[in-house]
């Protein structure tokens, strides 16, 4: 009776790096050809060989993929992800809010998600700096891939929803300072970049907020915008033109409606999570949910990643990929969107996202096909962070 409910293996405190040989009927390298009945070697936390093992412990499965990457996760933030004291706060760092022992990260690692971009939430117009981290590892320090990654901003409803307009008297709450409409959101965004330009013109220095905005202007830092509706996506593109910014978009529920334009302008999109039910009322922010969003974006040639956002269990990233495929995304495109292309969007493709010699040993060994079957083993930086065989209740797994 009790046997069916057993403690799960603790992640992050597992054995140190070992030497592994992973064998699978299909090895999806993503960057290169698909290998049949092949092996991948892991040594010192890196991939030491593709097509040849490295000796050591042998793990076998149906297929092998790179560790999955969620390019717009909310996992692991302790407390709120929105700093409400200011609507423009470029120098805030999400890393300061990350809980290395968070349950959500544990679950992601178990599901095969090994790297995530986590960012401040969408209540601020400019929320702060995201971080790219691994979902498990010896310590948070070793898990960090990029401590101060893309700057996060948001368009549309999210930063203005629920804010109280000034009607009379003196503002007594910081809510009064917040934008109450789409216009106000855009104005604050634009003003931040005007202020940065003025700051530079006057030859000033020492203001970290301004320095970060100027890094974005100079193309030295990525800018991630959440824009859900078509009009918000168009606003984003207009602002990018006006201020000379390169942007990438998440949220993006209606991006399929301007897929060609996004492709032509080389704007990357992080799509998802997929609407769970096609009933419109649940997505009041979006005119009409489109299950084929990711498929239509990929078809148009947009650089695409998938995200599960805050979804868990069956709706975690493998589930998103599985259903993106059901709704029209070809398998190869789905795999790229949760590995190498996600890594490209995050600018970490030299370390993760494909099975290549010298890259981080972040790997998922699946029982059969990727996404449709369960992970048998998950490695992060050469450490076995999930092993179905030593799971005390191997059949009682995350029911995706």
């Amino acid at each position: 009776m009790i046997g069916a409910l057993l403690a799960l293996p603790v992640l992050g405190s597992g054995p140190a790096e070992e030497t592994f040989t992973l064998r699978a009927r299909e090895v999806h390298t993503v960057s290169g050809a698909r290998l049949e009945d092949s092996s991948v070697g892991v040594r010192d936390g890196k991939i030491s060989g593709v097509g040849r093992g490295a000796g050591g412990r042998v793990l076998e499965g149906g297929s092998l993929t790179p560790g999955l990457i969620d390019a717009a996760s909310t996992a692991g933030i302790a407390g709120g992800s929105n700093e409400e004291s200011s609507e423009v706060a470029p120098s805030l760092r999400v890393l300061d809010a990350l809980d290395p022992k968070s349950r959500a990260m544990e679950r992601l690692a178990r599901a095969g998600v090994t790297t995530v971009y986590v960012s401040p939430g969408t209540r601020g117009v400019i929320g702060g700096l995201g971080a790219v981290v691994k979902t498990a590892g010896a310590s948070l320090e070793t898990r960090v891939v990029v401590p101060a990654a893309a700057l996060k901003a948001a368009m549309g409803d999210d930063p203005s929803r629920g804010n109280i307009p000034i009607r009379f008297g003196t503002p007594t709450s910081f809510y009064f300072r917040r934008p109450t409409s789409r216009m106000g959101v855009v104005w604050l965004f634009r003003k931040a970049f005007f202020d940065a330009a003025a700051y530079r013109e006057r030859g000033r220095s020492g203001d970290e907020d301004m320095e970060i905005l100027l890094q974005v202007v100079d193309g030295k830092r990525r800018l991630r915008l959440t824009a859900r509706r078509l009009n918000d996506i168009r606003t984003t593109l207009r602002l990018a033109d006006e201020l000379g910014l390169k942007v990438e978009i998440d949220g993006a529920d209606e991006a399929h409606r301007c897929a060609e334009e996004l492709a032509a302008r080389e704007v990357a999109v992080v799509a998802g999570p997929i609407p769970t039910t096609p009933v419109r009322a649940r997505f009041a922010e979006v005119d009409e949910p489109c299950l084929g969003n990711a498929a239509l974006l990929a078809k148009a040639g947009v650089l695409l990643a998938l995200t599960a956002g805050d979804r868990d269990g069956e709706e975690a990233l493998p589930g998103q990929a599985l259903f993106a495929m059901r709704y029209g995304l070809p398998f190869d495109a789905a795999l790229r969107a949760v590995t190498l292309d996600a890594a490209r969007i995050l600018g970490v493709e030299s370390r993760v996202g494909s099975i290549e010699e010298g890259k981080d040993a972040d790997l998922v060994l699946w029982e059969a096909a990727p996404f449709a079957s369960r992970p048998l083993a998950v490695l992060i930086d050469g450490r076995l962070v999930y092993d179905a065989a030593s799971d005390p209740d191997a059949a009682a797994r995350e029911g995706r």
Partner: protein
Amino acid sequence: MIPLLLGLLAAGPSAGKVAVRAGRIVPVVGPEIRDGVILIEDGRITAVGREKKEGTEEERRPGEPPFLEVPWDATAIDASEQTVFPGMVEAHSFRGLDRPNENVPVTPFVTVLDAIDPVSFYFEDALRDGITTILVIPGNNCVIGGQGRVLKPYGRTAEAMTVKPEGGMKLSVSPKSGFTRLSQMAELRKTFADLREYRERVLERKRDEREEEKTKAEREGRKSEAKADADLVREDDLDARKRPLVDLVEGRMAAFVWCERAMDVAHAIEVARENGFLARTTLVLGPEAWKAADEIKACGRPVVLDADLVHLEEDALTGEEKRAFVPRVFHERGIPFALQTQASTLGSRFLWYQAAACVRNGVPREAALRAITITPAEILGLGARLGSIEPGKDANLLLLTGDPLDAQTWVDRVILEGEVVYERSKDERLRRLLEGKDAPREEKGK
């Protein structure tokens, strides 16, 4: 919405003789058949086997499906590239209702008939996703919630959708909002005690009438027919509001008892046993109720599992997360279980997905397939009519593009009682969901 439904209604040949040629038949009961044929007459399956090719003298080996001759006047349906699977059955749902529960705690006299919305998205989606039979029953937020009805997701009125009017009574042993477990159980006990008293009162009255009649007959020199106590009370003698509960305690109505937690299971069994309806009870379980699997096994009744198949909880001592895959617990104990859907997540709104999740988590494929077909059919008392592809059963068939449990498989057509009632190629709303609002529309021939 309305034009879409009209489109769906207009599809398909009329009933009569139909022959479905299938690339693969997954009958759930019995072995799979490759290149088979299913013969249908007047909405019922008459034979399942392989087609007899003219001029060949193939011998049927023992254990193999029979060779069948397709009648010359049968409407042929070609599914030779497809997999045919029985229409799926959902044994418990309160979707498709206007609102699932009354405010009043004890309402055995209400019926979902009055709250079914035939044009709700739930029914449209159910058909598209291969669910052909659903018990729609009041929600769990009740003491005695009212009567359910077994429906097919096709038809413009609740009456037209009805497969079986007597779906069963909904009861809850877990507290309704505003109740505690103490007051919930007190309310249940009181209701049944009142019922007993009421029935005794009626019986007493009928006995008095019998006596009167007897005396009167004697006085008039007639011979009177003295009825036995058991035959004395007729349906008309009972208050219409009490009749459904009388049906329940006299074993004429099935019961679906909601048990949110493991601690509720014993109470559910007690209430059902004391009031004589245990033999017709199905337990509807919350995710944590798996911990009472041994008690459930002992009472010998089937269960409908929560749509959340995984039960997660934190160990109070160590803080570690513990996980149980619920259907596996019931499978291992040999307790018949049915799966249900919910609207709130990506996969669990599909019955096939729920079964696929079972397989991925160590439940044998056959048991998982049964949990979305024959087991729920048996729970609804329709095991002889639904849930498998066998001669004598209703011709509710899904023509699938692949294996029933593969996430890349689509329902291509749905045959309901011998009629094609859904075709994916004509499903405009699905096309729009997949291709987006601005997708250029093809001009349909008019």
